Every structure is written in C-alpha cells, then in structure tokens.
C-alpha cells in the first residue's frame, strides 16, 4: 500500500512509546503554553485569520493523516466530508439564504451535521475499501469531483453556484464565537481535542489493529480480524474529525459554496498533510500553518522582492515539488533528520558536543 514504503524508524509508532503526563516532552508543554497565551501578544488578524484558519485546515488534514498514517488509505474525500458538514450546518441552521435554511437550534444541527458527514464518510469508505493504494486516491478524487459538480448544479438543497453566505456560529454562553479571541480558543480547543482523540484511538485496541491491517492485512485477517470493518470504521472516525474541521471552517469563512470542496481545495488538503508529514498527528497542523502563511503573505513577499505576483502558483508548485522530491515525509521529516544530525554530533559517551579535534 501507498504509505508503507516510507521507512518507519521512529514514525507513526511513536505514540506507543509513552503515555501519561510525565512522558510529554518539554517542547509540547512550551508550544501549548505559547498557544494558550497567544491572544496577549498577537493581533486579531493573526488570531483569527492565521491561527484560526490553520487549526481548521489542520483538523481536516488530521483526518487524512489518520487514514493515511494509521490506515494506509490516502483519501482525497476528506475536504468533501468537511464541506458536507458545513453545508449541513448552513442548511439545518441559519444562513443568508432563508428560503432553504431550516433554522434549527444549535444543539440539534451541530450533532446532525456531524452525523450526516460521518454517514457520508462511512459510505464512501465502504466503496473505497474495495480498492487499494492508488485506486483509493483516484476513486476518492472522483467522488470529490462528483460532489463538487452536484452541489454546483443543485439549487433546491445546496443553492447551486453561490452556496450559502452568512453562516455564523451560534451565540453560546453569552459569547460571540466569531470574535477573534473567542474563535481562536474555540478552534484551538477543537484542534487539541481532535489531536488527543486521534492519539487515543491510535493507541486503543482498534487503532493497533488498524495499524496491523495497514502493515499486513492478510495476517490480520488470518488472526480473525475483520479487515474491511476496521477500514470502514477508520473512515467513519476520520469523517467525524473532518466534519468538526469543516464546521469550524465554514464559521470562519461565514460561507460555504461548491468551491469550498472543489478539486483545488481537495488537493490542497493532501498538500497540507504531505508538507507537514503523514507520520505523526502533529504534522497536519505544521503543514496547515506553513500553507496558511504562504497563501496569505506570499503575494506581499513576492512584490517586496520586486517580483510579479502572477507567478505565485509557480513558486508554490516548485516548493511543493521540492518537498515531495527531496523529503517524502514532509517538514517533520526534515526536522527529524536535522535532530538526527545534531545527535550524531554529540559524543555518545558524555553527551557533550564533540570538539573539532575528535570529530
């Protein structure tokens, strides 16, 4: 299967190594602390637009990472699942298109949206697990295209080309969740929740069996595991994660339209997950952050160097090409290799940096 070829020295299996608070490395505590106090020093734009958006995309890419990293199934349908959840929120809840939106209360439409998206993901999974490797990529790409065209043509439910505008989060507990700080904490909280859920599931018996299915489906089948059921269940779980990301994304954008899950958007999620690295759940968030920074500021950077902003796509394409060509495991892989090199530079006996003479 597709992902298996990557060497897995300290890769996906890493979560097995430790558990409990004591094992969490200092770096994570530091990052967590910085993220918590971010609103003190970051402006609204950074909170809402950069971090908020990164968390939304990161959650959706995380659902892909779960399928690809632990299940060995590269699915391009995750953005579609997310967009469907967003559509469900717009249709069942409130939006600018009053003749379609049903105006249900939030405690009804949010769970319903997640359930609808998860059911859809499960159905897609049931179809996609009949195939393997590259076929899965193509089939999910085709399903994503079908969804895009269907929503673009259907005016009775999906409001066609224009989609839904003015889809805003409900006012809960007296907080306007679209305010930058509130949305920042909402998306941060959801991202942490999804991240922990993926870690937890990966260590659960189900997750371990899934990784077994990824590595050797025949042996797992011989041991009495239902391979197909495990894979479909993985799709269902990843569907829930993608749905959460999708709902947040729609609230952040205030709108959902066919282009939300158009082919470029679908490919973008794959690019995010790959750039970050498909081997650890933190990878998609790193990838999303890089992607958001690039797409927000690269026109400014290009023009500040006196280059034309038109060739922005070319630069992004070349950068992406360089990453996949030279570092198949993404930015985290680069980090790992850098650390590895640093470690080699330490003396194995004393732990001190080697002096120039001994090296």
């Amino acid at each position, binding site marked *: 299967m597709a992902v298996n070829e990557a060497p897995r020295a300290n890769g996906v299996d890493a979560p097995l190594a430790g558990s409990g608070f004591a094992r969490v490395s200092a770096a994570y505590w530091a990052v967590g602390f910085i993220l918590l106090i971010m609103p003190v020093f970051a402006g609204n734009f950074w909170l809402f637009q950069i971090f908020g958006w990164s968390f939304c995309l990161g959650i959706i890419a995380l659902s892909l990472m779960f399928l690809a990293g632990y299940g060995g199934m590269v699915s391009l349908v995750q953005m579609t699942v997310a967009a469907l959840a967003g559509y469900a929120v717009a249709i069942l809840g409130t939006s600018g298109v009053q003749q379609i939106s049903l105006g249900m209360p939030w405690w009804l439409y949010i769970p319903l949206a997640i359930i609808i998206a998860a059911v859809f993901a499960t159905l897609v999974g049931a179809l996609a697990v009949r195939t393997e490797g590259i076929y899965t990529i193509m089939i999910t790409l085709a399903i994503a295209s079908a969804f895009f065209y269907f929503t673009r043509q259907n005016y009775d439910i999906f409001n066609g080309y224009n989609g839904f505008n003015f889809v805003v989060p409900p006012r809960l507990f007296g907080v306007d969740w679209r305010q930058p700080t509130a949305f920042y904490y909402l998306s941060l909280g959801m991202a942490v929740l999804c991240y922990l859920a993926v870690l937890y599931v990966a260590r659960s018996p189900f997750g371990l069996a899934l990784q077994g299915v990824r590595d050797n489906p025949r042996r797992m089948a011989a041991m009495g595991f239902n391979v197909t059921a495990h894979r479909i269940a993985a799709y269902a779980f990843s569907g829930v994660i993608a749905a959460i990301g999708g709902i947040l994304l729609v609230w952040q954008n205030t*709108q959902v339209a066919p282009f939300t899950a158009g082919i470029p958007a679908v490919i973008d999620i794959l690019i995010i997950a790959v750039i970050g690295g498909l081997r650890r759940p933190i990878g998609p968030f790193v990838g999303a952050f890089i992607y958001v920074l690039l797409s927000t500021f690269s026109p400014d950077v290009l023009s500040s160097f006196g280059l034309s902003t038109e060739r922005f796509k070319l630069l992004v394409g070349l950068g992406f090409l360089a990453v996949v060509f030279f570092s198949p495991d993404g930015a985290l892989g680069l980090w790992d290799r*850098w650390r590895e090199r640093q470690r080699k530079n330490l003396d194995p006996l004393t732990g001190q940096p080697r002096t120039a003479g001994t090296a």
Partner: protein
Amino acid sequence: MNWTKRSLLGLAGAFALSWGLSAPAAAQQQPPIRIGILVALEGAFAAGGRDAVRNVELALRQVNHTVAGRRIETIVAPTDTRPDTAVRQARKLIEQDRVDFIIGPLSGSEGIAIRDYAKTIPDRTIINGISGALEMTWVDPAPNVFRFNLDGAQWGSGLGTYVVRNKGWRRIATVSADYSFGYTNFLGFAVDFCRAGGTIVQRFWVPLGAADFGGVIAQLPDNVDAIYLGMGGTDAINFLNQWQQAGAGTRLIGGTIMADQTVLSARGRAKDALIGTPTSGPLAEDNPDPAWQNYVRLYREAFPANERFNSPSLFGVGYFIATSAAIAGLNAVNGDLSDGQRRFNAALSSLKLATPLGEVSLNENRQATGTVFVNEVAEGPGGTLVNRMVARVDGVNQTLGMTAEQFRAMGLPSRTNPDCRALGGG
C-alpha cells in the same frame, strides 16, 4: 530546510517592510488614506484583473494620489474569484493592512460573499469593483456597500427591444450557462425581449464546462428567427466551434460575455460565427461620447502598448469608475472618514458621478442607474473582430423599469424566471 527557512526570512522581510511603510506616514500632518484593492489576479479573469489594477492607478494619477490634502495609498489583495478567498483577502485588508475602505471585488459570487462580509464591518465602506451579481445590492443589501456599475440583469436590458424593433426577430430559442450570472444576464434580456412582444420557444441551460455541445446544437429548433447564446469564455468558444462544424444554422444574439474581449481575442476561427451578432453590455469601444474618447486616450497615454489592452476592458472601466467615485466622495467630505464613515457614505449615496460611460446615480439600494450599450460584432482590420455600437439605452435602473414591487414579485433569476408570457410575450 533551506526552502522553508528562506521563505520564513522573506516573511519577516515583508513585515519589516509594512512597518517601514507606516512609519513615515505617522510623521506627516495628515495620515494617508489607505484603499484596499480586492481584485482577481489568478484564474480565468487574471488578465482583466490586471487591467483593473492599471485603471485604479490611472484614476489616482488624475488627482496626483492626493485628495483633500491627504495622500492615497493602495494595497492590492489578489483573489482567485472564489468567494471564500475574496472574504479572506477582504479581512486581511481590513484587519492586517488597516485600509480605510475597499474597492472590489471583481466576480459575481465574490460580490455576494462580500455583501455579507460587509455587514460585519459597519464602519468601513466597500465600493464594488465590477461584480455583476444582482443579489449584491438587491437581496438584503448591506448599508455600506456601493455599486457604481450596472448589474448583470441591467447589462442584458435594451438588447431585447433592439432585436425585436430593429431586426424583426420575434421567435427565439436560448442556450445559456447554468449558473447565477447566466440566469441574471438572461433575465435582463428576456424581460426586455418579452415586453417588446418576443417569444421564447425553448430554453436550454448548459452546465459550466460542458465542452461538447453537439447534442444541444442538434436539439435547437429550425423555425426560429435567432438563437440567444448566454455563455462566456471557453464555453462560448467551444459552442461556436461546434456550431460551425454542424453547419451554423440561423442568426445569433449574444449575452454580455458572449462577445467580450475574452472571446473576441481567442485564437482560431471559431469566433467568426459571431459576425453580425448583436450583444449588449455596459460599454461600447467605439462610443463617440467625448467623455469615453477622452478616457480611452488617457488610458493609452498612461501605459505602454505592450502593458495594456488596446482599449480598456470591462473590468478596467469598472474599477476606474469605482475609484473615481471614491475620489469624488472623499472630496465631498474633505477627506473626513471619522464617525464610522457615515458622512462619506452619505456623500457617496448622493453622488451624480460623471463617468466615461455617462452620468451614474445610485438608488436607495446604493445601486447604479446608467447606460447600456448595444453592440454588433463586425470584422475589423487584419481579420480581427470588433464590437460596433449600434444603440444606447440611458437610465436603465435596477428594477429594469418596473416598480420595486413588480420586480420583487417576479422573483430572483433562475432557470424558469422570467415567465415570458406574464410579461406580454409568448
């Protein structure tokens, strides 16, 4: 690592630069007015978007980048015509670049998304670039969104009367693109055509990007005076190509983007099927009006020939007028944008703006009333195709001459709207 590091360094550079920009500004007596330009620079409309940026520059040069003693700075935010990108970039302009107001966006669905975004920033102003979506200023319009160009339905108005009265074409079939602009532009034409006594025998809606129209062409009825085509870009070229290959039957009538620069500048002979086809839209390249001629001369003098179109594009004119409106509004309030821009908004609402396309005024929805031009495609020098102006209709308003109640009762543009018979046609 290198790649990432370098781009991060670049980012840091960009921040430093934007800080640097604001530092000397603070030293001046009056802070500059910052205008965000929201424009599509990627995808199908990229060339038009660049023309829009040129025209903003052109309009600002006329006042030497200064209004009421305050300097004007512009920040361009590129989009890819997707509504979510438009909202994102608009938010970047407002929150990060701290612009005073925005000129833009360029395309229809962007316009609708920006209308709803505008409601969340009530103390900033948005002056539409060239988005033609009817809904932008008709359905729940935002009080701080102003549109000085006509919408897609208005662009279609006037053509119907022309083909019935001047050409005597009364029975037509229509083939239009199956999305919001297709409906809107068709509605403008059909309302006018049906009120003039025309009959629409059959309507075909073709999905965007359906590249093979052989089956549709075979379906077109023989016993009609003309076929109305409401497509644009590649779809238009594909249709015309296959229309010729199938032996090009009857005469054609074009929607606003059926014979625009995108189609007329396409390479190959497919577009030749358009010769003699009447279309309607917001401008005529050979408009003899001195205001237009003067503007075209300014445009040609301002930019070298290889960096501009021969004549300003639809997108360019739209952004030029929007920028002129902004300048006029700022002059009227003497550069005062305080009090949540209330005075500025009031000044914009009551403008009687002299534009290259004639005088434009806004109605209670802050939507322009102005002139529609009817053009016919003709052969130009060297095998090129050009649009020749054959008629103009002044004072076309948002409700196409109906009362607001009548227009609202008719319903929004859709596959089945308008009902030709209810309007007096057949």
